[in-house]
């Protein structure tokens, strides 16, 4: 299946992608700003995400929370999300409501600051602190997604620090920070706009020009601190965390080639052979046969700069210790060198990836998000159409070479959660 793709740039630098598909009267608007927690300055961990919250607090012509209300009144769904290296905002609306979605996005890209107040910042700061409590502090294993990058990247690296941020840094964020972050990163030349679904091409182009065309180009953003790291960890570091959990859980991670590179596709297939669904090696061996794990999966983190990570995530079966779990997982990894990955195993994985991709692309919102992703990282939205063939082109030899090169003892970190042993537990 090929998605239609038309890309062009406005004079202010905004990269636009249009993808028409009139099979349902639904249209998705999707904006990626090429900024994430990696861009935060020292002492402001969590700010990119807090800033995402502020984008729903109104802009010059839009009241606080009115963005949500107007899109929901229009019969649409919407949200935003923040990641290490990007922030996205998206709406899916009935196709006759395209204009309001574009207008709302343009108003906040062009004129956010007049609506910012100390009270709004204070409220969203508390909301985000509650988000942190909910998703990290009061959730078993909830700290894994800040501990793992901290273990995987050196302290000076842009991916090292917490995305959700520390309570202290959240407390320190000011309105000045909001203004400065907005001017530096929320510029048309640092953004990608995608429209996917049912729309009229000429009408969409005219609306985009009308709403976004006059937003001034911003200065080029400051460069990130150096992203380069050694392609391997050059050792095996581990961290053991006592937590309010009942079963031990292991995250075993390897450095691997960045998202979109040739090596990435071998890494992605290797992860899927190991831990995608119940037919994968780890599931069959550890859950079904040996019953040392109650759950296991493996996946790539899909980072496009510095280094990607291939992560194995395994939770112990009751009665199995963290050490036994780790031994069992590493035995299976070592086994990849003896019982090499076969063409049949790759066929299973590619067939699953094909069905998943087709299923995902049924939704206008998902299509728009994928197009924005490739436009943001590679300047080429049409790369979405070559993903499947790149997976199909990967050979068993390439995946086995990846195993040789990246899955050895010299390229690992282990993050191990164990039940708290204090008497109070």
């Amino acid at each position, binding site marked *: 299946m090929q998605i239609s793709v038309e890309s062009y740039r406005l004079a202010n630098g905004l990269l636009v992608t249009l993808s028409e598909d009139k*099979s*349902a*009267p639904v249209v998705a608007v999707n904006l990626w700003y090429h900024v994430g927690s990696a861009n935060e300055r020292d002492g402001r961990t969590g700010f990119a995400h807090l800033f995402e919250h502020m984008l729903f607090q109104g802009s010059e012509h839009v009241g*606080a*929370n009115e963005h949500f*209300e*107007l899109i*929901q*009144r*229009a*019969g*649409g*769904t919407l949200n935003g999300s923040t990641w290490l290296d990007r922030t996205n905002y998206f709406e*899916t*609306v*009935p196709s*006759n*409501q395209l*204009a*309001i979605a574009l*207008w709302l996005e343009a108003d906040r890209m*062009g004129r956010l600051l007049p609506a910012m107040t100390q009270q709004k910042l204070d*409220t969203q700061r508390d*909301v*985000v*602190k*509650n988000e942190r*409590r*909910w998703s990290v502090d*009061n*959730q*078993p294993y909830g700290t894994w997604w800040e501990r793992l990058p901290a273990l995987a990247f050196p302290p000076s690296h842009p991916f090292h620090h917490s995305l959700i941020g520390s309570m202290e840094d959240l407390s320190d964020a000011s309105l000045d920070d909001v203004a400065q972050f907005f001017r530096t990163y929320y510029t048309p030349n640092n953004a990608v706009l995608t429209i996917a679904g049912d729309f009229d091409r000429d009408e969409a182009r005219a*609306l985009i020009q*009308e*709403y976004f*065309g006059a*937003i001034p180009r911003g200065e080029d953003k400051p460069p990130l601190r150096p992203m380069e790291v050694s392609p391997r960890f050059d050792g095996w570091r581990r961290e053991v965390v006592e937590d*309010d*959990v*009942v*079963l031990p859980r292991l995250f075993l991670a390897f450095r691997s080639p960045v998202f979109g590179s040739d090596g990435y596709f071998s890494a992605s297939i290797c992860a899927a052979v190991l831990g995608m*669904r*119940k*037919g994968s090696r780890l599931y069959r061996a550890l859950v*079904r*046969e040996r*019953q040392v794990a*109650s759950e296991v999966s493996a996946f790539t983190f899909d980072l496009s700069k510095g280094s990607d990570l291939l992560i194995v995530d395994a939770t112990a*079966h*009751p009665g199995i210790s963290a050490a036994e779990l780790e031994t069992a997982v590493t035995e299976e990894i070592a086994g990849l060198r003896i019982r090499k990955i076969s063409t*049949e195993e790759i066929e299973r994985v590619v*067939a*699953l990836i*094909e*069905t998943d991709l087709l*299923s995902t692309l*049924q*939704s*206008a919102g998902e299509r728009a998000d994928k197009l924005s992703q490739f436009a943001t990282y590679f300047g080429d939205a049409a790369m979405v159409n070559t993903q499947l063939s790149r997976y199909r082109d990967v050979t068993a030899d390439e995946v086995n070479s990846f195993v040789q090169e990246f899955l050895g003892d010299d390229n690992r970190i282990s993050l191990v959660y164990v039940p708290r042993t204090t008497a*109070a537990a």
Partner: protein
Amino acid sequence: MTAVRPTPGVPRKYTFPTVERTTLSNGLRIAVARMPRLPLVTVLALVDAGSSYDSAGREGAAALTALALGEGTAKLSGGELVEQFERLGTGFDSGIDWDDAVAQLTVTTERLGAALEMLGEVLTAPAFRPADLERLKSERLAELLQLQAEPRGLANEKFSELLYAPKSRYAKSSAGDRGSVSAITVSDVGAFHRAHYTPSSTTLIFAGDVTMELAVQLAERAFGGWSGLTVAPAIVNDDIAQSGRFGHIVHKADAPQSELRVGHRGVKRNHSDYFPIVVMNALLGGLFSSRINLNLRERNAFTYGASSGFDWRRGAGPFVVATAVKTEVTGPAIREILFEVERMREETMQPDELTLATDYLTGVFPIRYETTRAVAAAIATATVYGLGDDYYTLYRERVRAVTAADVRSAAQHHLHPESMLVVAVGDAASIRESLEALDIGVIQVHGTEGGS
């Protein structure tokens, strides 16, 4: 660049895919919704074999039976079965709800025939090998252990347990508790399968790039030889433990948040007030811009989010407001929830508040049904509750017909502030006093262990 808000254009017509139905000679029903856009089909086998059929002391048997379908057939071991499905590019999923069991897969059109043949084997000739069942039981027990440390799941379980009478199936988790799951034997699962998985209790739903002709041909091949008796419908006991206001704390030492569930028994899915209730709930706590979320999150910053919902079942499932709030504001947050529920009954809403809900529910309708999986699930719901095949055609009309008076009447009849169950999973030492000040009775404190 303009300060003027654009107005909507003329909506393009949307129609939910037409549902065609037929029945095979053995009683198996078939429903087909054609969505020819992509070479993809979802097949969903809907079986009248949900948790409501569990017998006392064997709660979880329905769930275990549905899960065990994927663990091997007379011809194939579990590992081989999974391998074959996945080589077709499809993961086989099975599970239960209160009112049905579902076994489904999504596959490209060219692999549909092979996948359906395997689906037929899975449903009609599962092996239920003792070792596989033991493993599934131990995985469920592991899940129950994990729940003790997981405030969200724990709050849900405790709320149901405290709301319903011990004899009601709804008092226990649909997948069963430690005692009941441990007691289930291989012969219980075999017997459950024989009694409930029969052609006449099953509807095979196809959504996607497929015709009725092809669906019937493939279904005949995979399911034509299947036979079994007709099943008497489940009798659902939805009695509550007691009416009145009650407060409970599930103690989790030093918890930085309290996970809250506040509510009471709701109404049956087939209640004639369904649409007014759906609109009323959207405004109360269903939408981001609902009263409860705006109050607790945007006005008070007590939480990352708060919502309310009616859990729709054949019997009366719970109505519950759910949120997680900073420990220090637990009492005030519950007070605000009770206030918003009360206010919903007392004030007739303004026209623009009503249209927020009705415009959202009608507008979002086509967005909900972009995928074959979503359409198959929608047809399953209509089938389980006998809503009729014009249900989705008429849905938006029926939402639009709801008036402010209907909403107020729905609130007065179906929200019961005088009979609220409050469950807080949090640090008892820090929150007990603030709950005691709320007029929700004597606060009882529990440990985090699951049921016996």
